[in-house]
């Protein structure tokens, strides 16, 4: 049974695209056949984060409008043979996406993949509502910061009102992915804690991704963090989150990199 997952947040810059790439790669590494779909028409970035920007020929809109076949637009990842990318269009307008077109593409993807991860654009407009429209599961990405939490609350309201599952009265499965978490600042009372955010948003927690320099290094070189450095704290956190998405019951923890004093001083390298 294939699963359609939307990665959404309302607010921009919280880590939707990074999380889509990381969860997609982690699920693919676990043996699932995965497609990551960029819904950010006009501002596509998933191709960059996945390191496939020079291989884009056709895109989501071409397929939705019937100008290209799905297999022509899908880009196979060079590192993981069962990971595919369906890029967004960079030149077209957001209005070029129609609900019927998206439904057709999603249904076709359903037949071919175990898992389809839709990277939603920021905002609450058409692009975001279309990305979530046919989803079975929503991953709400939030930073422990007031504007992000407020926007997540708004997106949760939209998920409960505008998705097909919600309209059918089944309700949609929602999970919180807390990114850019700094346990040190939380301990010093400078940052909202996991408990604070969970109490406010009251949806189940999928994972806590620690704020970590390695995430930027991974995007610099166009590799999902779990492929770039599987041992680093955020990669381990994304791997845990991906397992939880598959129903594995893992205890929640905040991963951290234990650096030796020597590495702290001399271990820095340019990337």
């Amino acid at each position, binding site marked *: 049974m294939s699963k359609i997952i939307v990665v959404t947040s309302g607010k921009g810059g919280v880590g939707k695209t990074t999380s889509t790439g990381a969860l997609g790669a982690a699920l693919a590494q676990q043996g699932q056949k995965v497609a990551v779909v960029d819904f950010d028409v006009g501002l596509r970035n998933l191709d960059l984060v996945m390191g496939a920007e020079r291989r884009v020929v056709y895109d989501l809109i071409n397929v939705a409008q019937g100008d290209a076949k799905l297999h022509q637009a899908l880009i196979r990842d060079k590192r993981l043979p069962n990971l595919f990318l369906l890029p967004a269009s960079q030149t077209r307008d957001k209005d070029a996406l129609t609900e019927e077109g998206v439904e057709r593409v999603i249904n076709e993807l359903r037949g071919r993949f175990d898992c389809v991860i839709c990277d939603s654009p920021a905002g609450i407009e058409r692009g975001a509502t279309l990305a979530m429209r046919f989803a079975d599961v929503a991953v709400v990405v939030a930073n422990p*910061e*007031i504007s992000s939490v*407020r926007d997540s*609350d708004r997106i949760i*309201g939209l998920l409960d009102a505008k998705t097909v599952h919600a309209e059918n009265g089944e309700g949609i499965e929602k999970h919180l992915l807390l990114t850019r978490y700094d346990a040190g600042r939380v301990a010093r*009372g*400078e*940052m*909202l804690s996991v408990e604070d955010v969970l109490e406010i948003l009251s949806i189940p927690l999928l994972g806590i991704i620690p704020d970590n320099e390695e995430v930027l290094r991974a995007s610099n070189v166009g590799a999902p963090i779990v492929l770039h450095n599987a041992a680093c704290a955020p990669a381990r956190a994304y791997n845990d989150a991906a397992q939880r998405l598959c129903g594995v019951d893992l205890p929640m923890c905040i991963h951290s990199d234990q650096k030796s004093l020597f590495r702290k001083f001399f271990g820095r390298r340019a990337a």
Partner: protein
Amino acid sequence: MNLLSFLGRRATAPVARERLQILLAHERKSACNSDLIAILHKEVLNAVSKHIAIDPDKVDVSMHRRDLISMLEIDIAIEPSVVDDKFRERAALVGRF
């Protein structure tokens, strides 16, 4: 930053938490009420349109909430001619009795 200001720094996360809780309690309530507004909007218009013709584009509904009172405001623009006709009808009826 000197040592004194470092020691004197207060935790800001609880402030963020409290602000969010108040704000979201308010926003969630208004989200639920938007349905109520839609229902009131429709029913009030139905009631009014039984008596006079109204242009749906010239109706403005809004809800204001203050600490103690909530106010539903419905502005319906009515063409002067419609009012005059109704007034004349009424006057004729009254004149008959």
